[in-house]
């Protein structure tokens, strides 16, 4: 009797282990299936013309996404120029001076802002910049991306700075250095690689964003170097191609996805390899 109860309990335990392992295998399989589709369907049409030229009229064949790559690059760089200083500054504040009600408030608002749908940021920038400026622009798109970036960078920066041992601060303060010197010359350099890692991951994140760009940067079929005009991006281009009726454009969506996902995955994997040695 006792023996059979014991066996049943052991059996249940074994079954549950199998079930949880199956869940893990399932999730990993989904990832591999998606990556396999993108690679197989996208690789065929990636060539020099594809990454350097502008899209041709649908059904003409040929053409490429050069302008979308350029637009994504410009907007990501501009968004980083706006978002990184603010995000890192906010993060430094939270870590070094933020143990008060104001710090808690900023922390709480940052965390909730991270979860706010990015399309909302698009609408916000539409009302804030696109309507007053009389039209969509690469600049508006960049600001939208920077807003998504700021809270993420702030929270990772805070975490990284908190990892710096207290003794380093105390040592510098004991030698007579003012607080700002301690933070700027001792603490921040010590946390630099961590802060950079967080920044790079945030850049990877915004480079995959579509929703905030849909009606702030819109799209463009031409090479555009001016940030006061509508600007193409990889993600919006993928959206337009994928939802359109033309097979050759749908094919281009797969190829553009391969480039985008490839970049994002490479960044994620490199960061993982580089940080594994340290932490």
């Amino acid at each position, binding site marked *: 009797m006792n023996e059979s109860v014991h066996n049943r309990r052991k059996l249940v335990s074994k079954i549950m282990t199998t079930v949880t392992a199956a869940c893990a295998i399932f999730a990993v399989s*989904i990832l591999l299936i998606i990556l396999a589709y993108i690679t197989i369907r996208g690789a065929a049409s990636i060539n020099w013309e594809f990454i350097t030229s502008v899209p041709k009229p649908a059904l003409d064949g040929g053409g490429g996404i050069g302008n979308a790559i350029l637009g994504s690059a410009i907007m990501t760089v501009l968004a980083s120029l706006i978002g990184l200083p*603010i995000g890192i500054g906010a993060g430094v504040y939270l870590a070094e001076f933020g143990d008060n009600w104001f710090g808690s408030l900023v922390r709480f608002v940052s965390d*909730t802002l991270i979860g706010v749908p990015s399309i909302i940021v698009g609408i916000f920038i539409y009302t804030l910049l696109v309507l007053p400026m009389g039209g969509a622009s690469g600049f508006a798109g960049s600001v939208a991306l920077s807003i998504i970036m700021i809270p993420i960078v702030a929270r990772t920066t805070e975490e990284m700075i908190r990892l710096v041992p207290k003794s380093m601060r105390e040592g510098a303060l004991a030698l007579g250095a003012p607080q700002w010197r301690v933070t700027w010359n001792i603490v921040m350099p010590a946390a630099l690689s961590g802060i950079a890692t967080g920044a790079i991951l945030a850049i990877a994140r915004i480079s995959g964003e579509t929703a905030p760009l849909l009606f702030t940067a819109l799209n463009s079929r031409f090479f555009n170097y001016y940030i006061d005009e509508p600007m193409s991006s990889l993600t919006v281009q993928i959206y337009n191609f994928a939802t359109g009726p033309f097979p050759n454009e749908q094919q281009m969506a797969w190829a553009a996805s391969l480039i985008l996902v490839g970049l994002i995955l490479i960044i994620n994997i490199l960061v993982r390899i580089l940080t594994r040695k340290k932490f």
Partner: protein
Amino acid sequence: MAKTGTIGDTIFRTILIIFASTILLIVVAMIYMMAVNSMPTIRAFGISFLTGSDWKPASNIFGALPFIFGTVVSSLIALIIAVPISLGIAIFLVEQAPKKLATPISFMVELLAAIPSVVYGLWGIFVLAPFLVNYLGPFLQTYLGWLPLFEGSPKGTGMMLTGGIIMAIMVTPIITAVVRDVLEVVPTTQREAALALGATQWETTKIVLGNAASGIAGAIVLGLGRALGETMAVTMVIGNSPSISASLFDPAHTIASVLAANFPEATDEMYLSALIEMGLVLFLVTFIVNGLAKLLVAKVAKDSGTAKAT
């Protein structure tokens, strides 16, 4: 010398406070700008905006109920699928798998969250939707067709079910990551105590889960917040039709998807106002849901007496 130090400190601190305040300013400005720009429909419709089920922009009739319905139902489908799977993965990673196996699997699940939404949408249109129409749909129809949920035939041009499933894939890594962190915070001594009393591995896990309950609830709420606001992938597969139907095989629309799909065409003042008001509603709901999730997850960290998993 000391004086320059204090002046420097003041300047430095002020600059940092300005940066930190920017985050608060962004959120306040978001609420203000959206509220101001949705005034026309707030004034014209009041609360009936949220309860009206007719959406006819051409005749200036705006009822957001079909979108609220679509958002809630698709998110529920996503959670029903994603929660058990995420719990399973997290339990496997923390309680069962050897570290050598857990680390790469954990990373691969995280990568699922790194894939852009628009790429999920592309995959959804050309791989997932045909799969559902050709295999899973007919299967559900044959065996569960008597349920109103699976009435009619699955539609490859977009349906609620596809939207829910693609969302499920996208929130799984998010829920998994939080549950994993929460389980890791539960003290090892609890597991050792249970095992020492003769509990099996699974019985021990159940005790651990019980102690992490509020954190797990937080993870689910966080996943809900993400699902409610999921935009691109859903827009691409859900069919974008503002209808309220019990069948998951019918096309639907969510708040986020109507914003993505129809915002560019909304040049009329009332139409634009109606969309921005829905954006405001979505913003407030996700803001509250995320705040709640954070409080729940923070509770576990506090109960366990550590500072992790905040």
